């Protein structure tokens, strides 16, 4: 497929235009959080949240009879499910030293139980409502053809919220990422900050997974952060660069997905990985030079 035909398709198809905008917004919101996720070693939490979203989705589809994946009610119930789980994981992670279960174990349990719940409840829903058949691929890898104007609006609000929190709390977030215990000792309210960041993660994962799919959204919370931290020596430039990587890799990935007829999520992750390899190579060359 030629480059011209892709741009022609974008120009003539509102669905593709929405996909580009929604994908860019999802990419920016995930990627802006990525340096923090990497520095605080929260990658597994992001992964756990992404899989928890599948459990929440299954429960929501089962509880809200007649509902569909893209309904607002389903999204809100999924969000509530993930928030409850995030609070439980947040509690486990803050009490990791004194509790009976380690943080990674708690996330691992939440992760697998949520996936199992999601599979069971979606199967029950399909048994009760046989005409409701949505491919598991839609949940796991996203479907850009499902993006409506309301999704773009929700993603815009999400992206603005993420960026606003990162700008307004940049110094607290820097100290928290540096050493949470020290930040607490110095008088910062790290409990509030910890839960605020978890809330942002949950919102981002649940909303962005509509575009990227729940399996691949977690990689967008990590790869741009790793790339930016390889190239930047200060936090704000790292977040800005990560957001740019998130935006560009999404658009390039979408083009590759269109051109090669593959899942957009998979194409986006592979583009991000290619950028990581280029960044690592550039850093090595810079050091040698």
């Amino acid at each position, binding site marked *: 497929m030629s480059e011209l035909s892709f741009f022609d398709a974008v120009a003539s198809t509102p669905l593709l235009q929405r996909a580009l905008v929604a994908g860019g917004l999802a990419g920016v919101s995930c990627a802006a959080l990525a340096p923090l996720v990497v520095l605080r070693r929260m990658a597994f939490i992001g992964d756990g949240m992404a899989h928890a979203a599948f459990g929440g989705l299954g429960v929501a589809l089962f509880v809200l009879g007649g509902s569909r994946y893209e309904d607002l009610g389903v999204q809100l119930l999924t969000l509530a499910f993930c928030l409850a789980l995030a609070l439980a994981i947040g509690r486990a992670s803050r009490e990791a030293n004194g509790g009976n279960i380690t943080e990674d174990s708690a996330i691992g349990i939440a992760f697998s139980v949520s996936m199992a719940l999601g599979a069971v409840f979606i199967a029950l829903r399909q048994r009760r409502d046989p005409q409701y058949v949505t491919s598991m691929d839609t949940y796991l890898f996203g479907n850009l053809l499902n993006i409506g104007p309301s999704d773009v609006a929700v993603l815009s609000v999400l992206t603005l919220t993420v960026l606003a929190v990162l700008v307004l709390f940049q*110094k607290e977030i820097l100290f928290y990422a540096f050493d949470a215990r020290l930040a607490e000792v110095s008088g910062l309210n790290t409990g509030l900050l910890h839960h605020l960041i978890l809330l942002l993660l949950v919102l981002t994962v649940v909303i962005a997974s509509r575009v990227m799919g729940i399996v691949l959204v977690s990689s967008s919370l990590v790869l741009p952060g790793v790339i930016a931290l390889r190239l930047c020596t200060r936090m704000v430039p790292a977040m800005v660069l990560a957001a740019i990587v998130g935006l560009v890799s999404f658009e390039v990935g979408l083009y590759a997905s269109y051109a090669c007829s593959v899942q957009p999520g998979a194409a986006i992750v592979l583009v991000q990985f290619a950028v990581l390899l280029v960044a690592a190579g550039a850093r090595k060359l810079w050091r040698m030079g």
Partner: protein
Amino acid sequence: MSEAPSATQARAATTTAAAIELRGVSFAYGPGPLVLDHVDFKVADGEFLGLIGPNGGGKTTLLKLVLGLMQPACGEVHVLGRFAPALGRDRRLLGYVPQDTSVRQQFPATVMDVTLMGTYASLGLLRWPGPKEKEAAREAIREVGLEGLEERAAGKLSGGQQQRLAIARALVAQPRVLLLDEPTSGLDTGGQAHLFALLDRLRRQYKLTVVMASHDVTALAHYANQLACLNRTVHWHDRSELLSEAVLRKVYACELDAFFIEHRRHLADFHGGDAPAGHAHGPHCGHEHGDKAGGTP
């Protein structure tokens, strides 16, 4: 370092009160045995207290209680004349240097960024460091001997430099009390000597109260005004009384002959050859704990 009026006033307001006071404090982690057992503990303003004791003896626990990170099972912790949990934002008057001060190599912050973190709590939300804070940070960096490295990535400093950076970060908040948890671990002998000398100078210069937990008994005996041996309960000693072999054997529950050879040699140097014998001074420990708590500070 220039002081903000509020910090000076705060200092003046509580000069007569003990900087730190623990009254009958006991603590246990969950249902486990007591880590601290009815500890009475008092440190006067401007003192340098060396806190020694075996691993698991409660040194770090005591520091965490003073910092308000944990609550005692019974008893009270008072800091700067106030109930510790009620310190709120004045907790910034307590500077803390943890045992591990290493900065991850790729952490995106310069020496200046890390030092400025010490000002964040006093700035409050939605306010960013201005010229005043930056000047205070530059001065703190100068005080610890890192001038010229302000824009260097913090993760690229050596271990000793990162240790000094941690002190600069604590210092920039203009604390009244500096708590250090085994800061010399991981430093070579030269680095340890430099750190002790630096702390001693800063304490005199800023009238800081310093509490340092450390296994380096010899250096603490040199620099600290008082030594407290902590092993579930506290055993007090003025530096002038020094530590007897019997006390240390009791606290550490092991033979310390090798230590004493070095310790006596050091004391001989320190006191011009007038080193006391190991058993010359009776131990002020066990049930006598707290005798100095009420008097000396």
